[in-house]
């Protein structure tokens, strides 16, 4: 007779078996602290979104889609002096709404969406990093929606999401001052602490501190910065920021090539 699901109840909460495993600690392999994992980036792959991008760096896979400009909800009336270059006055500027989501199977433990505070925090970090780059003054009373979906977390997820979001915005044809490139770092604990560029999930889990930097490469301006942990004195953090900015500059040519390829594909597919 099949199990009686009404009388035989399983436990209320479920946990993965790894929690009870006897410490099989795999140490992350020693590596060059300034190595960047090879990146695969492709823009313009979703048919329903205005602009989209997929970024894969090591085990981290992020998919980002942009829709807009759409009419903003909650009309705001405003006047005031117009900005330079034919931009709308400050009160009528466009809005950027960012959403960051983790797929339930992206990490070691299953996390049902909505993920709560952490996803909201990362969505806010995305918004704060992308706003300096997007010319919102050219989209008065409109809103741009950026949604990033993390398919698999293999380390430096926020940095990958930032880069994918910037690519998706560029693919959508949104006017921008510059691309935003993100880079993750982590600080190893122990006798000789070093900052590692572009950490893997294992390195991130064992890290004493982690940092994500977002740079606009051509303008050389830092668009976003989010770091926490026991990183040590300010000199250590300053060194980490420098390393991160260098990593962002190195990543930039890959993204340029990706956008050029996407534009070519779009041109070839367009009917004559």
């Amino acid at each position, binding site marked *: 007779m099949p199990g009686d699901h009404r009388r035989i109840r399983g436990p209320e909460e479920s*946990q993965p078996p790894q*929690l009870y495993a006897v410490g099989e600690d795999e140490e992350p392999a020693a590596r060059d602290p300034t190595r960047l994992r090879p990146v695969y980036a492709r823009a313009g792959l979703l048919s329903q979104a205005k602009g989209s991008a997929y970024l894969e760096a090591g085990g981290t896979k992020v998919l980002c889609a942009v829709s807009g400009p759409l009419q903003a909800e909650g009309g705001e009336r405003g006047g005031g*002096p117009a900005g330079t270059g034919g931009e709308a006055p400050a009160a009528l500027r466009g809005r950027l709404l960012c959403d960051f989501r983790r797929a339930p199977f992206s990490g070691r433990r299953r996390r049902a969406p909505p993920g709560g*505070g*952490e996803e*909201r*925090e990362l969505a*806010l*970090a995305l918004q*704060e*990093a992308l*706003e*300096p*780059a997007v010319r919102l003054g050219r989209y008065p009373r409109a809103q741009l929606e950026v949604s990033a979906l993390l398919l698999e977390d293999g380390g430096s997820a926020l940095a990958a999401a930032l880069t994918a979001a910037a690519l998706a915005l560029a693919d959508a044809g949104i006017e921008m001052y510059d691309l935003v490139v993100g880079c993750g770092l982590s600080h190893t604990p122990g006798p000789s602490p070093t900052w590692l560029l572009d950490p893997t999930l294992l390195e991130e889990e064992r890290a*004493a*501190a982690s*940092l994500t930097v977002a740079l*606009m490469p051509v*303008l*050389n*301006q*830092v*668009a*976003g*910065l*989010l*770091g*926490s*942990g*026991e*990183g*040590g*004195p*300010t000199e250590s*953090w*300053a060194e980490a*920021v*420098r390393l991160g*900015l260098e990593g962002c500059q190195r990543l930039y040519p890959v993204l340029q090539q990706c956008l050029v390829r996407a534009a070519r594909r779009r041109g070839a597919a367009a009917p004559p």
Partner: protein
Amino acid sequence: MASVALSEAEKVYIVHGVQEDLRVDGRGCEDYRCVEVETDVVSNTSGSARVKLGHTDILVGVKAEMGTPKLEKPNEGYLEFFVDCSANATPEFEGRGGDDLGMEIANTLYRIFNNKGSIDLKSLCISPREHCWILYVDVLLLECGGNLFDAISIAVKAALFNTRIPRVRVLEDEEGSKDIELSDDPYDCIQLSVENVPCIVTLCKIGYRHVVDATLQEEACSLASLLVAVTSKGVVTCMRKVGKGSLDPESIFEMMETGKRVGKVLHTSLQSLLHKEESLGPKRQKVGFLG
């Protein structure tokens, strides 16, 4: 954050003044406004504090409750933060308006306490895997006058310093059933060590210089700020860029140095004030909040 409508002329006045190291109220770029800190203002909590920084008024209450430890950390207690931006602070927070800001501040607090050094969580454990102390830190924003993060972090540190957790023992019967015993003496408590609790210093970039402790008007002139959480020893536990604008890498390094310098001074004065207040004991005259 509450916004203030400023005319272009006022903005230019503030920006030009800051370039000369002179702010509208006469302070220098690295000076804080007058801070009033008072602990033990709410009697139903395990610890509380009120901080008044210019026009910013914060009330923090800490309640210690027993619960089960998290699965990944069975030997430690933990802290839960909740920030309530009440509608009294500014009309923008009416209804659900203040929820976003509240979530942002709570997430920042989680981030700065998310490392082993800040608070000794092992002292909050009663029996591993079964019982631990959970400290619910509730922050109430009574009035918003600029520079919320700094005031909140000072208030949280003061409230944690004031927290008294009753001493509890777990007794085991012959049958194996556990019983929790609270000590009879109401003054027999555990006190937390707040030596390494960090304080947030927000540095707002205005023109080419940066200012500490910005008022609402100065925040309206600044496009980007850097939030640095510094401990009393100068160790940075959290860094975050806030705002719509971008920052030059060189200014980030300068702002970090200023943050560390200002943070150390802030910590020494806060520590001396808290110790002085505690040494006065029950004879201390209480002012209370909104007073």
